[in-house]
């Protein structure tokens, strides 16, 4: 269940569209729900969103499974989404991915045992000039080097404690 504050936010989002077009709020509300409920969308969460927007649950499932930013399984507290498309590859993203794998001892798509980190490879995030890069939460981490990756991991560990 959303808090009063979040429910107001949902109302505000729905008000952006003409009357009866509240389905348009689906993607923004799913973002909100994912942030609020542990970084992923469970079936219950999606059913809740469907009830908020008065649409059929299947309409939510269809959308949530289409867009790559919605996690349908639990993820770690910090998700490293490393870009691997052409421009990043030219700048050595493969090495960065390998480095993170070794450093955290996980494969792509896996989460560390302590539930802190998940490694994902993603396709172009629009930071090609600042490659290699990854998305961490709301922000991009650019010009990655092994040293920078170390620092980021350390930073996350400190924040988690």
């Amino acid at each position, binding site marked *: 269940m959303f808090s009063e504050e979040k429910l107001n936010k949902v109302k505000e989002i729905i008000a952006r569209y003409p009357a009866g077009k509240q*389905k348009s709020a689906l993607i923004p509300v799913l973002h909100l729900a994912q942030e609020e409920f542990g970084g992923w969308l469970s079936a219950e969460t999606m059913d809740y969103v469907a009830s908020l927007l008065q649409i059929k649950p299947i309409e939510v499932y269809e959308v949530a499974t289409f867009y790559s930013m919605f996690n349908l399984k639990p993820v770690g507290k910090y998700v490293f989404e490393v870009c691997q498309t052409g421009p990043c590859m030219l700048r050595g993203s493969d090495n960065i991915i390998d480095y993170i794998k070794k450093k955290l001892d996980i494969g792509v798509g896996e989460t560390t045992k302590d539930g802190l980190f998940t490694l994902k490879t993603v396709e172009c995030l629009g930071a090609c000039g600042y490659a290699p890069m990854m998305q961490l939460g709301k922000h991009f981490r650019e010009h990655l080097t092994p040293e920078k990756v170390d620092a980021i991991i350390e930073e996350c560990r400190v924040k988690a404690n």
Partner: protein
Amino acid sequence: MGRKLLFDKAHIEGIRYYDVYRANGGYGSAEKALRSMTPDQVLDEVKKSGLRGRGGAGFPTGMKWSFIAKPEGVPRYLVCNADESEPGTFKDRYLMEFIPHLLIEGLLISSYTLGCNSCYIYIRGEYAWIPDILEQAIAEAKKNGWLGKNIQGTGFDLEIYVQRGAGAYICGEETALIESLEGKRGNPRIKPPFPAVKGLWDCPTVVNNVETLAAVVPILRIGGEEYSKYGIGKSTGTKLISACGNINKPGVYEIEMNISVEEFIYSDEYCGGIANGKRLKACIPGGSSVPILPANLLLKTAKGEPRMMTYESLADGGFATGTMLGSGGFIVLDEDQCIVKNTLTFARFYHHESCGQCSPCREGTGWMKRVLQNIENGKGKMSDIDLLWDIQRKIEGNTICPLGDAAAWPVAAAIRHFRDEFEWHVLHPEEATKRNYGLAHYADPLQIAAPAAV
């Protein structure tokens, strides 16, 4: 220094905020349009400017605007396409992050011209921090009477909303974007009907790229006539180019469309040459979907003329020896890069991003990816190269939206120009996993950019 129209004030500190933007002449064009011009007069200026869509297709903006249907009592919508997802392209991000008011002013003028009272900025979900910047700028503009009801006492109303996507390249296609904005899967619609007649919520809608809408501001400032004097021929004005890959100075550059590709790559004002003293091997000048060109065809056309950074010159020679300006995602490959690997990453990208509606794209993109994986990993066969060619040929042109073409072109161009490199991968599977093919003959006619003397 090349003349600038969008980034001319980008260096001013605090230009992101309303006060600084306004103090430097910001909202002057909007003032001019709303106070002293009719929508038709603004449209006329845009038509005169020769502005072409900056998202990739290069369709004349004035003409697109004039198509919008105006049935009585039906709202019209302007949608700003900020779903910048074409690999190599990151120019709109820069514009929105650093000069958000330029976009808002452009949206205001464009909405006024089209008669829209609601406008949506559809931004890719991964640019998660930019909606905050845009919403702050919208709030500032509203506070200062540039948005909301009765703007500047002219009686014109406009609300701008920011909508985040959630990770789907396909939503950069205008009808998929509209579907997504309606809260659905990003499946492109079959055209006709075109959005100008039946778009968002079945109402007439214009979808334009961020840069296109921002360019309306300088057009009104200097006049359409003057704007059209920038650049060469039908490539009028300036273009944002996001340069990346193996160059010394990756970044977003505003160029006047009258410089040569060679100048763009090698001059210190722009890319600053190839990184680490290497030589240029190939380049994809307009985002991942446009054909890759080897160095010799990139700098000079097949006729031997210098290739310019314009829509026409880059397309000179058609797909046989030319490419496209596209979205301006300029990806440079040096002599150490592997064309097969690069093509594979793009094939993987399009496979990942195919919406799955049309069978050729849904099935064909995955097939191309797997065949390329085999070739790259030393398991390829000679016949695989022809197979790839045949698959891409059967995807191209046979799908609802241009994603099929976008997936087919990079593979086609790589085979067309770099077939020997593919063959080398097949013939030397062991060696191909250890080292790269190198430069070969692609740069032979080039006198410049030789590596530093040993």
